């Protein structure tokens, strides 16, 4: 019977995986007391083919009765096979914030930031009649919310009112003071807009200020303390359906993750490995145990030392180096220590291992974009909110600071087809470099990291002076600060975009045909590591033939 239930659960999970697109992100939240400078930090790796184009959507004022269109599924922009369609209208707010739109909208001009990951959850709570998807909720939360908590409440209320049609999702929502982790899934298969029942189940938990949260494709909010209104927010009738369905009984602890996401998708360590790795990197002293998909790590942990933006960027470049799961040293890494592992279909896996997968590092080649944000209460909003943005994979990207007060982004960062090569788009420069590095990962990755650092180190070094100048201008006239930061951000984005194309051409001209062009213009042959040559029996067949010939 247990086996039957497990099979059923697996089928349910597979069904939801087929229905839900966002499958592999790793966001973090860092409370103001856990960061080096008191910033509240939110981060996100958007792992998969999702819209990488940044659009600034200006805030506005609207007459009562104005309606706004709702489009689904906005995160899939750039996919010709998944056209975005209008699914309805809802009343527009009388006043909206400026927000930054992308696959998963991530920032507004009030320093509110959002990171995202998918967990899908039970098929029983999914409902196709729900109008709003997670990207819609983010858009609405950023447009209408001026704090993280307010954004969470707005998203929750709208999801209940209009129905939530997406799979289970988590958002890490931060502002200049605090972080809330918001988890949402549908109202149930039987929900209809006419039912007058809430169209979503959701809960939110406040992150302790001195702690760090990580999520990776399974729900993370555990037992809810319904009495603790300071640290938990929940949807209307949250317990009703779980009780009716026998998932929970009155008197038992209400474990949100176990109730709504009892069987996380992916292999047994697809989610837990990344949670383990991120927590182990920020708090190695706690020696976290290895847990599979059914074992839960704490919601958040206190880091051994306070964290910087750079620390989070480094976590995002992790390939499990130095662990038993190191993707750069196992056999599949090949001769050049390549951590990238292409996806494998279930019918392509060896017998007895169809439920397994490659080890999953935090750094992922198929990432569309990633960011690390800072929200700072001691700075005026246009300066205090800054999002370090990188296109494509986090380990080979360059993070460029984009202030939440800017009013323009250079065109190459706002465009780009993805189903064909598009040289007008910055994204393709980063994707080209990342893909080209697969030719000779050990040599090129080192060079890429040096080049990446050559930009980022300058941005870090200039940050204090840039912000000091911006604050000075803000005190004279906020518009001057906005103009200054816009110009500075545009200049940096343009420099990086042009520089990265040049760098791509440089790599192509330097590494080809198994060789490497040196400084004198000569082709050198780095060859293969000796260990690898021994493992692949270099020269073996020839020696065997020679042995046979010499016998004669």
């Amino acid at each position, binding site marked *: 019977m247990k086996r*039957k239930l497990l099979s059923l659960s697996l*089928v349910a999970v*597979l*069904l939801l995986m*087929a229905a839900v697109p966002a499958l592999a992100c790793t966001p973090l939240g860092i409370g103001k007391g856990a960061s080096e400078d008191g910033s509240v930090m939110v981060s996100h790796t958007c792992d998969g083919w999702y819209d990488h184009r940044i659009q600034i959507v200006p805030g506005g004022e609207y007459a009562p009765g104005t309606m706004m269109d709702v489009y689904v599924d906005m995160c899939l922009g750039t996919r010709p096979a998944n056209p975005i369609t209008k699914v309805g209208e809802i009343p527009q707010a009388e006043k909206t914030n400026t927000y930054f739109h992308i696959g998963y909208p991530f920032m507004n001009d009030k320093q509110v930031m959002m990171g995202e990951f998918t967990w899908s959850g039970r098929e029983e709570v*999914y409902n196709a009649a729900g109008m709003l998807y997670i990207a819609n909720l983010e858009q609405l939360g950023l447009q209408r919310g001026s704090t993280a908590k307010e954004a969470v409440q707005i998203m929750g209320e709208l999801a209940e009112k209009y129905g939530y049609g997406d799979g289970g999702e988590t958002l890490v929502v931060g502002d200049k003071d605090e972080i809330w982790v918001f988890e949402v899934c549908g109202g149930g*298969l*039987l929900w209809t807009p006419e039912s007058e029942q809430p169209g979503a189940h959701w809960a939110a938990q406040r992150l302790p200020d001195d702690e760090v949260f990580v999520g990776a494709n399974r729900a993370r909010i555990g037992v809810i303390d319904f009495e603790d209104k300071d640290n938990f927010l929940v949807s209307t009738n949250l317990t009703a359906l779980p009780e*009716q*369905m026998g998932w929970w009984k009155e008197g038992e602890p209400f474990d949100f993750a176990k109730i709504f996401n009892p069987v996380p998708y992916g292999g047994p360590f697809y989610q837990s490995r990344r949670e383990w790795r991120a927590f182990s990197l920020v708090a190695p002293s706690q020696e976290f145990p290895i847990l599979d998909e059914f074992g839960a790590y704490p919601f958040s942990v206190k880091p051994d030392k306070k964290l910087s933006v750079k620390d989070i960027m480094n976590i995002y470049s992790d390939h499990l180096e130095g662990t038993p799961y190191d993707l750069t040293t196992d056999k599949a890494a090949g001769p050049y220590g390549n951590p990238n592992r292409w996806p494998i279909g279930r019918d392509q896996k060896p017998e007895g291992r169809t439920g397994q997968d490659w080890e999953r590092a935090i750094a992922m080649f198929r990432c569309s974009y990633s960011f690390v944000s800072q929200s700072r209460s001691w700075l005026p909003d246009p300066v205090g909110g800054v999002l370090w943005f990188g296109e494509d994979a986090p380990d080979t990207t360059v993070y460029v600071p984009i202030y939440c007060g800017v009013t323009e982004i250079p065109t190459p960062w706002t465009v780009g087809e993805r189903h064909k090569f598009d040289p007008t788009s910055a994204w393709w420069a980063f994707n080209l470099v990342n893909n080209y590095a697969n030719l000779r990962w050990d040599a090129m990755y080192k060079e890429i990291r040096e080049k990446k650092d050559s930009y980022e180190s300058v941005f870090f070094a200039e940050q204090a002076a840039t912000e000091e100048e911006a604050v000075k201008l803000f005190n004279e006239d906020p518009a001057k600060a906005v103009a200054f930061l816009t110009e500075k951000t545009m200049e940096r984005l343009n420099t990086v975009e042009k520089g990265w194309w040049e760098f791509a051409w440089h790599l192509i001209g330097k590494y080809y045909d198994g060789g490497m062009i040196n400084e004198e213009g000569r082709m050198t042959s780095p060859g293969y590591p000796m260990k690898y040559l021994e493992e692949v029996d270099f020269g073996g067949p020839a020696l065997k033939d020679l042995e046979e010939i010499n016998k004669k």
Partner: protein
Amino acid sequence: MKKTALSLFLALLVLSLCAVAEAPPEETKLEGPYLVTTCGQSPGAVMVGMSAMQAGAKATYNNALTAETFEPGEFKTLIVTAGTSMKGMGAAGTDINAEIERCLGVIKAAREAGLKIVGAHIEGMARRTDSSDAASIEAVMAEADVILVVTDSDSDGFFTAYAKEHEKPLIVVKDALEIGKVL
């Protein structure tokens, strides 16, 4: 007095007529516990199961049920929902032919075990769009002792005509939420 007696008589008559009208015919009476599966991996079976459970009926849904794994236990009725999901079948690694074969096997085993067979279509016209949907409906309804549909699924009268032609009892409910009321 006469007027009162007449009124009382009329009231009793109306009440008894109502009772007759509301009592479901014997042939459409369904008895739990219910075992539910889908022929096409759409969410229909789960919806039926949820509606039943929310109405207090005992129901178990299993989209991977086969004749081999079928155990009659206390089940009195097997409900098979028709209508297909290409995504669902893809994710479950199956197709419409395999689904029909699986369901016909389950129906045979259930019938042999004395269960009543209900063929259901409860996801509306959205699950009556292509040849896979048609094949699923045809296979399931042909084996059904009773047909259960929601109003939207029968909006063109297809199931009414089918039930009449094949002399099968038909239960029509407003929507998926209402299914629990007839279980």
